[in-house]
């Protein structure tokens, strides 16, 4: 009887371990090597300084440290980073982990260039500290693009033809020293 109970406990434990590993999905970016993300210099965004850092990480031993530059124009209260890609995300959602020291008010969105069009997701508010497994549903119908008149009301089109991945970080106007650590970007 005790042996059976023990075996049952072990079986449940192994099942949970398998589920845990399986749920991690494929890591698209873990920032373990050189940084190949670029800062966008659009008119309506602020500057950002990026470094690969071992200060805070959620996967591997490093993450991307992104520090917003203080801008004179307080409406430039976001920065955008991007990476060239060649992805088929027809059936995937996007996940990432972000750490911020900011007590409140920092938020994140993602965007894609797909078949020549730019699509941007809704904007998710971050808690202070680690925000793990932030999920962006790529099948959702709340992306915005030029054709939607920049209303968050359309699905992400051409998901099989992703040529660029963007991450957008917003913060309150006049907030100083906005720093985030981004890690463990997954598509699953």
């Amino acid at each position, binding site marked *: 009887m*005790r042996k059976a109970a*023990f075996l049952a*406990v*072990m079986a*449940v*434990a*192994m*099942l*949970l*371990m398998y*589920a*845990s*590993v399986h*749920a991690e999905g494929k890591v698209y970016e873990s920032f373990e090597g050189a940084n190949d993300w670029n800062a966008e210099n659009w008119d309506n965004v602020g500057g950002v300084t990026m470094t690969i850092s071992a200060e805070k990480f959620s996967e591997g031993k490093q993450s991307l440290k992104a520090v917003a530059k203080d801008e004179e124009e307080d409406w430039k*209260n*976001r920065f955008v980073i991007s990476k060239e890609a060649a992805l088929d995300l027809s059936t995937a959602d996007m996940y990432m982990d972000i750490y911020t020291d900011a*007590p*409140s*008010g920092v*938020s994140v969105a993602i965007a894609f260039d797909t078949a020549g069009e730019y699509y941007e*997701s*809704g*904007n*998710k*508010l*971050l*808690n*202070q500290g680690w925000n*793990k*497994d932030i999920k962006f549903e790529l099948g959702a119908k*709340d992306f915005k693009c030029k054709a939607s*008149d*920049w*209303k*968050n009301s359309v699905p992400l089109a051409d998901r099989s033809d992703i040529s660029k991945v963007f991450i957008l970080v*917003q*913060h*309150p*106007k*006049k*907030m*100083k020293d906005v720093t985030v650590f981004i890690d463990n970007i997954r598509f699953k």
Partner: protein
Amino acid sequence: MRTLLYMAAAAAASAAILCAPRAQADETLFEGFEGNSYWYGVDWENTGQVNLEVAGENASQGNGALKVVIREEATDWKNKVAFFKEANGIDISKNSEVLIDVYNKEAAGIEIAIGFRTGEGWVYYESGRKQVNKGWNRDISFGLDSPGYKCKASDWKYNAELEGKNNIGEFYVLVYRPVKMANDVVYIDNIRIK
């Protein structure tokens, strides 16, 4: 031997629990009033004057709270103050409520409401009012899905849905008094989106 087996089983179960994916916290702190304030009083004709400061007293979360100093008004229809914070287009469409803690120092009859500017048109929506008793009022809840909001399109009747929840431009807090504003102080803290 049995002890060893039990210990092994317990260790395996603990490892499984530790390795299992963590559930996301279902609340996000919209404002804890730690550090600088990013809140501004409105300049509407029908609101009274208010002074806002982050204070290290009467905090329900962290070390700071927003001290709302309501100033006396001569006109009795100025029975509320309102203030707001920019929300940078956050998406709260998958959330169901906003929770706020309010400390009411002494006045009776205080009520609180929340408001939003949403969507590309920055349409203003305001919730129904909630009573604030003397002392701490924790977890005052405002539902996001009920048709109890007012806006211009509803002729300012509380029967509208909050539209544009996937694009919140500004978040408002309103403090009401039943009659004209007298000098009063309330503290607001721990604004969460759940």
